[in-house]
Each structure stands twice: as structure tokens, then as C-alpha cells.
């Protein structure tokens, strides 16, 4: 009688594969930084040597001045930072039907010693005012919020409510 030879099983032990994979997974979980950069976007004007100033009528301007102590002037009237939004919103809405060369220009001017935080707060207020006006306009005309509109509709809203922010250079005297 021929004894059947037992064939030894040739297999890689896979029971620990899951453990190894878990270890790797853990490493990548810990090492991953999913941070989306968020912030306030802005486009700077091009640099020109000699600035030829263009006179802008006062009715178009909303001049925001921030001094070193963090006090805010809006068109020469003292105002607190959190009031900027409502104040500007009214003025943006009042110019909604005017042609594009008569829309509101918001000018922000700071002192060299102004703290960055206050500047960002002010800029935030301005942006909020614009965003809220845009949302209201889109709701009236297209029936949904601005960021839910399609591209062409967004362009229309942008045309009606353009965001014009002018950054004035701070006074160099106090350097």
C-alpha cells in the first residue's frame, strides 16, 4: 500500500495582516492634517510708481479710519466696530440701482500702530455687510442664497453688488 504523501500547505500567515494595516492606518490618521485654509480674500491693486489720484465724489465713499487705539471713524463719526456692518448695509442697498461707476467704495485706512486684529474685525464687518446684501438680492431675484446660485446668476449679482474695498496706505509720518 502506498502511503499518500501529505503535501505541506504553503501559505503566508495572513492573520496579522489586519494588525499591520491598522498600524499603518493609525499612523496616517495621526499624521494627516486636513486643514482647509480659510480667510478673507482680497486683490491688491497693481504697483505704480506715481499715483495719479482720481477724485471720487464723497457720496460714493465710505471712509473707515482706525487709529492706534482701535477707535473707528466712519465718515468722521466715531462708531464701534460691530456697528460698521449695519451702517454699510444701508448704504450699499441704497446704491443697488445705480450704474457701476456710482457704487459704494469702502476705504479702510489704518495707523501704522493699529493692531492687526482690529483691522481684520473691521474688514470682516465690511465683508459681512456685502455678503448679506448679496444674499438678500439673490433671494429677491433668484429665490435662493448667493452661494447656491449658478455661475451666471452669481455674475449678475456680482455686477449689481460689487465689492469694492480700497486700502489706503497708512500715514508714514509716525514711522
Amino acid at each position: 500500500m502506498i502511503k499518500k504523501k501529505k503535501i505541506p500547505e504553503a501559505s503566508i500567515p495572513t492573520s496579522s495582516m489586519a494588525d499591520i494595516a491598522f498600524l499603518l492606518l493609525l499612523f496616517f490618521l495621526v499624521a494627516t492634517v486636513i486643514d482647509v485654509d480659510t480667510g478673507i480674500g482680497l486683490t491688491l491693486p497693481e504697483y505704480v510708481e506715481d499715483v495719479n489720484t482720481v477724485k471720487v465724489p464723497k457720496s460714493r465713499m465710505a471712509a473707515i479710519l482706525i487709529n492706534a487705539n482701535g477707535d473707528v471713524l466712519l465718515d468722521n463719526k466715531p462708531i464701534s466696530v460691530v456697528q460698521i456692518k449695519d451702517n454699510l448695509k444701508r448704504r450699499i442697498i441704497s446704491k443697488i440701482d445705480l450704474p457701476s461707476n456710482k457704487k459704494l467704495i469702502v476705504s479702510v485706512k489704518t495707523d501704522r500702530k493699529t493692531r492687526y486684529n482690529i483691522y481684520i474685525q473691521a474688514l470682516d464687518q465690511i465683508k459681512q455687510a456685502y455678503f448679506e446684501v448679496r444674499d438678500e438680492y439673490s433671494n429677491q431675484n433668484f429665490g435662493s442664497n448667493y452661494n447656491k446660485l449658478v455661475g451666471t446668476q452669481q455674475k449678475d449679482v456680482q455686477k449689481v453688488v460689487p465689492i469694492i474695498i480700497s486700502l489706503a496706505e497708512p500715514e508714514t509720518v509716525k514711522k
Partner: protein
Amino acid sequence: MAFEKRRANSKQEIPTASMPDIVFMLLLFFMVTTTLREVDVLVKFKLPEAKAIEKIENKRLISYIWVGNNGKIQINDSLVKLDDVEPIMYAKRQSLANVIVSLRVDRGADMGLITDIQQELRKAYCLRLNYSTNLKI
């Protein structure tokens, strides 16, 4: 009356054969999404908070400038002087035309310095700017 232990007749095991596959899928996801930190931040800063913030979708376009609470400026991996901002950023713009400069500035920094940096950026034609802020809740 004797108590009998009741037991289901079916098998009581969770099939684990597919576990490695599932884990590998997760692993793959994290491997693909991971961007390992490329730069060490050498300055101390605490970002300001704001409400009306936008997300930058395209992370590839972003180039960071850090400004710490002691007024030090960092680009890439090293601290730089204000005068060096323009050439460095100009070179960056050459290699990436529509670069977005994200300013990560400490909330206590002076506006004078920020304006100086902005002037340098204007000279370097890096005009798309982003003030990096955290969301105010």
C-alpha cells in the same frame, strides 16, 4: 425546574475575512489625502477670528507668509527680512502665475508691517491675497 441555557443554532462569529480589505481602503484614503507638513513654522502666532470667511479650494496655489508676534517674517522655511520679500515672492510668481498669498499674521501685529509686506507683494505682482483667519463661533 432546571434552567436550560438557550443558544442559537447559528454561528456566532463576525466574518473577519474582509476586515483587512476594509482597513486597506481606509488606509489608502488617508495616504492619498495626507499632506505631510513641509515647513516648520518658526514664529509664534495666533490667528484672528472672523465670520465672513471663504475657503480656498485650491491648496496648490497657496503660498504662505507668516508674521509672528515679535514682527518676524517667515517665508518657506526661513525667517526673512522685509527687503527679501519681493524677490522671493517674485520668483514664486514666476513659477506659479496665479499664486494666492495667504498671510498668517499674529493678531497683535502692527498694521505698519502688514502694509509694508503688501507693498512688497504689489511690487512682486502677487496680487491675490488672503488674510488667514479662524472662524468666529
